[in-house]
């Protein structure tokens, strides 16, 4: 059973403060990028390129393709950051969603499959449906966050990890995962549901209700 939180709440990260030599990817920073602030873009690149490249490489598995994809993402961010709507979510989550969606699209295109996720940041993506700012990077250093998330994920049963990874990094639906693993549909749904629920509660200290 999912524990619901009250509507209209904004979720804010808790506890740790960002180190002085790092600036989080805030909506304000993205706003400055949108206005053509080169130093803001440089800060955004410095803060986001590592995790975005890692994500793209995990999905595409080819460094050249991942690099090419990230170029497209950053060029689009540079040219169209002014169109970013904070209601869509935190800038970092948006960048991750954008990178993942484009990488999965490329993966599917190379596999001659349909179903595009996000073609442009101008689109209103279903993946961005809830909106509202929720950005752990506002208070966690990247290293702290990596440790926290890695521990939370590796604590999941391997079967749950596998199902979530197949969905998130390979863009498979639960039906496709069930077919791939030769398991009943309900089993796969349950694995994803249980795994994501545990992550939701384990990682909740990363944010809190305002």
């Amino acid at each position, binding site marked *: 059973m999912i524990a619901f939180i009250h509507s209209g709440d904004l979720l804010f990260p808790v506890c740790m403060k960002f180190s002085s030599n790092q600036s989080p990817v805030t909506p304000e920073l993205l706003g400055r990028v949108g206005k053509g602030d080169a130093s803001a873009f440089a800060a955004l690149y410095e803060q986001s390129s590592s995790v975005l490249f890692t994500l793209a490489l995990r999905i595409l598995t080819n460094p050249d393709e991942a690099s090419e994809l990230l170029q497209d993402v950053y060029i689009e961010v540079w040219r169209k950051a002014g169109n970013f709507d904070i209601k869509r979510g935190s800038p970092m989550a948006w960048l991750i969603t954008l990178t993942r969606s484009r990488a999965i699209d490329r993966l599917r295109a190379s596999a001659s499959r349909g179903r595009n996720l996000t073609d442009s940041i101008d689109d209103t993506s279903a993946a961005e449906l809830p909106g509202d700012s929720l950005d752990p990077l506002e208070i966690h250093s990247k290293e702290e966050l990596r440790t926290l*998330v890695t521990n939370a994920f590796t604590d999941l049963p391997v079967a749950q990890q596998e199902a979530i990874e197949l969905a998130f990094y390979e863009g498979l639906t639960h039906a496709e995962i069930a077919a791939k693993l030769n398991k009943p549909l309900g089993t796969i749904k349950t694995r994803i549901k249980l795994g994501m629920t545990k992550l939701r509660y384990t990682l909740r200290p990363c944010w809190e209700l305002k």
Partner: protein
Amino acid sequence: MSLEQFEEAVALYAVDALEPAEREALESHVRAGCQECRAALKEYQAAAGLLPYALPAEAVPFDLQTHLMRTFQLDFAKSGEPATAPKSLRDRFLNWRGLFGQPAFALAAVLLVLGIGAYAVTLRSQLQNEAAQRREIETVMQNESARLAALQAQISDQEQKLNKIRSEFADSLGTARDTLEAREAELAELRAQFAQQKERGPLNKTQRPGDEMTAFLRGSNIHVVSLSGSDEAKSAGGLLLFDPSSRRAFLYAFNMPPLPAGKTYQLWAILDKPVSAGIFGTEPGNKSRVFIQQLPELSRTKKFAVTVEPEGGRPEPTGPILLSGAA
């Protein structure tokens, strides 16, 4: 979908695992105002958005930054270049000042600075590596120089030893030559004595002591065997004169080592096996003279040898060989 199904769908939606129809149904449900699902989805999406942080971080390729810089420069070239060329210096200055205000130009500049910084770090690292390699090579060269010096010392030492051996060999050769000359002199003396005896022979027909020896030396078929000293008696030598027809012989030996008490010299004629030809001692001056009346069968004798044996001699040689020579 039931509410429970929506609750489950929210978690799957966050990782994009729903089928298209399910996605649309959930989106409609949330847009219709289900705040519970909206709030849950917000947290699930936040958790899903953190998943990439669980991946082992990969190094971002340097050429990504370079390519972005190039793209922004092109962007600037397309959008930042004035339509007409400025007419005056002032206009040009103002135009350039305008360029600095262009976001694309500024971004390109920042990326250029970042690129140069990264290049400088790389260069510094390379220089440090090269310095470390140079130090390593210097250390290796020092070690090799030390090894070379040690080898040269060894070579010098070996050369000294070789020179010493050469010198010793030259001394030994000189000694051998001296010995040979002494033997030749002894032989010449013996031959002279022999010739004198031969000359005197016809004049002295009366049988006196030693006549038997004289008669032997007068024989016309006297054979001479030169005996050389062995390692035990390097300076010793000898001559064995024998007459195969009468099977008599005369042995003359010189520089013979003193005989230990209870020992004697024994002459052997070596046929198929050694056969004793007689025992003898030494005279003053380390010389030995012995007249042998009956040698073993000389026609088959291959070699003569003198050994040191217990007093009275032995049927077979047991002591060291002092003299030997081929028949």
